[in-house]
């Protein structure tokens, strides 16, 4: 794996940090999936397994995108996981107890996300408070508010919502033949479409718009960004606002997938989002990162989880230990590659 990357760097002359880390991520993901297909077979040979990974992680993809944007701008947002739980609960209560419609639930989700983004962004950008502390408070607030809104888990009965939840989009020409010889087409849920659109829009935004380039500049070096005439405070504010908005979208997509409200929803999602961003080559120090990498980061993380459970190591602790080992290996590889590259240049 390392040899491939080294060869590439030599042939293509110096790559930017962002592209180098992205290449590592994508290569590792495909290598891992291929290895799983070859050595484990079974589920991994079915196309639907891949789409199930997407179905289950659509919300995480959106949350991780928001996390990557904040991290590229040099901040961090650890409130997104509990915020997702709050949005699920609020939307569920709105649908079932207050007679809301699907549209009102969507608006409510986006409004909650946006409100968190605006308040946290304002505190971070205009009052110069450390993002970790602000979003930590946001996390506590969302955690407490979830139980204040409603303290027990319940499934949503609203018909329009359940219909939307069960909508499947079939992929043309892809699918597998089941045991009885019937062709079963592969499908994705609506959330996956939302996630893919989000990834594409954000990729374009980060690469070709003024805001996107400002985010990299501010994260890389705020002082020089300031000298270039970029409004550092406004950019930081917008990064948190975007993350909040994406948490709103991601929260609703999560809600659409699980169809219930519970205080325990999306536990640890913020850490998964951070881990996915890291695996995707985003650096906490800011200025380096890529949305496509984040997308593959989420896929890698869930693929390794699937591999572990298919290997029969189903004891709860093995998943966590393997995921941790994987983050560890990724980090060390990234660090070694970057160190060697910096030494060479």
């Amino acid at each position, binding site marked *: 794996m390392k040899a491939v990357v080294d060869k590439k760097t030599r042939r293509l002359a110096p790559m930017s940090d962002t592209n180098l880390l992205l290449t590592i991520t994508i290569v590792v993901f495909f290598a891992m999936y291929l290895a799983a297909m070859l050595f484990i077979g079974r589920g991994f040979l079915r196309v639907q397994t891949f789409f199930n990974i997407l179905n289950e992680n659509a919300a995480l993809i959106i949350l991780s995108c928001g996390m990557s944007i904040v991290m590229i701008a040099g901040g961090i947002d650890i409130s997104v996981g509990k915020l997702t739980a709050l949005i699920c609960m609020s939307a569920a209560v709105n649908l079932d107890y207050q007679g809301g419609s699907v549209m009102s639930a969507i608006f409510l989700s986006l409004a909650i996300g946006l409100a968190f983004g605006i308040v946290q962004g304002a505190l971070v950008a205009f*009052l110069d*408070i450390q993002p970790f502390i602000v979003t*930590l*408070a*946001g996390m506590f607030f969302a955690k*407490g508010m979830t139980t204040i809104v409603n303290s027990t888990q319940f499934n949503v009965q609203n018909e329009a919502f359940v219909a939307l939840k069960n909508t499947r989009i079939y992929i043309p020409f892809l699918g597998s033949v089941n045991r009885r010889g019937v062709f079963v087409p592969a499908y994705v849920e609506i959330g996956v479409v939302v996630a893919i659109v989000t990834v594409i829009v954000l990729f374009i935004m980060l690469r070709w718009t003024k805001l996107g380039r400002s985010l990299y500049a501010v994260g890389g070096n705020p002082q020089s960004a300031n000298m270039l005439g970029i409004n550092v405070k406004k950019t930081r504010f917008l990064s948190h606002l975007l993350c909040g908005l994406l948490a709103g979208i991601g929260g609703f997509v999560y809600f659409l997938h699980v169809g219930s409200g519970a205080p325990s929803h999306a536990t640890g999602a913020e850490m998964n989002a951070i881990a996915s961003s*890291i695996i995707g080559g985003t650096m906490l120090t800011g200025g380096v990162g890529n949305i496509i990498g984040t997308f593959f980061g989420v896929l890698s993380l869930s693929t390794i989880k699937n591999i572990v459970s298919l290997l029969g190591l189903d004891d709860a602790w093995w998943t966590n230990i393997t995921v*941790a080992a994987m983050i560890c290996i990724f980090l060390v590889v990234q660090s070694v590659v970057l160190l060697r590259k910096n030494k060479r240049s």
Partner: protein
Amino acid sequence: MTMAKTGEAGLVKAGGIFRRQIFIPIAALLALILFNLITDPSFFAINYSLNSAGDPVLSGYLITILDNASELAILAIGMTLVTAASGGQDISVGAAIAISGSVVLRVLCGDNPRPDEMQASILTAFLISCVVSMLFGAFNGALVAYFNIQPMIATLILYTAGRSIAAWINNNRLPIISDPSFGYFGSFLPGIPIPTPIFIAIICMIIIALVLKFTTLGLYTQAVGINPNSAKLNGINPSFIKFITYVIMGLCVAVAGFIKVTRFSTINYSVVALDIEMDAILAVALGGNALSGGKFSMASSILGAYVIQFLTTTLFKFNVSSSALPAYKAVVVIILVVLSAPTVREKLGKLWKNLQHARLGKEAA
């Protein structure tokens, strides 16, 4: 050390009190005390009564605060050093406490989860758990110091795996120790009316105070945190200093884990010390220390830990349910950090100055 000097200089200037670092936790503590005095003065009552074992003990909300804040105060010591040296936080302490507690029980219980008598002395178990915790600290430290990985990300590894490792150490069983002498460390020593964790916390504070006074650890840590490159030019090894702060953090975790496990004489891997890393980081931030590293004030951090416990206990007293507690805590934290934000504090300082000028002007007239 440097902090004390700048603090003294700040006192001379009018409005300097607002710029001193320890102002934030003290102001927060005073506000909480005032709030409790107004709403219910009986909050401060301390009773002297017999406990279930028949020993006379002190009880009351103040004692509860001092007792329960012990682990947090000990963790705040390590967290302050880690933050100052590496400019990042260790988010694995909760999981690491689960590991160290698990090790203590494993050594004491052996293979039998419900032993009639302990298989080893408590001291041995404690020392082994110290070594294990320091090894895990060294793992974090090596990733941060030698592989240049951001601390939050490096410790994310142990955060993810820690509780699973803790369960694995004891084969996922829940050992219970019935020997009463094990419980002395988490509750009361016979004949002494003050909870033992308070003494353990005080011992830790004295040790760190002596270390900071008589060694160069504090100075080097701040130098590395402010600028690792210039520290290197001055003959300090920044990687080693960062590494050593994580090992010290491991030691703090072992002590805190020991207190946690002796409180209940058992352990629950998934909930023991849950979210304590967030409180420990909050303590450092409440103490006015920059989370990006550099200068630090140990006293402010420790005071910050007690402020957090004070707040938690106050909220519990007002019958806030434990699941809704974080929302109220968040509001208070936001108010505190907004008040302590540099821009707001500068304005407060100016306001104070203007008030004094106005008073002086009146006196002169």
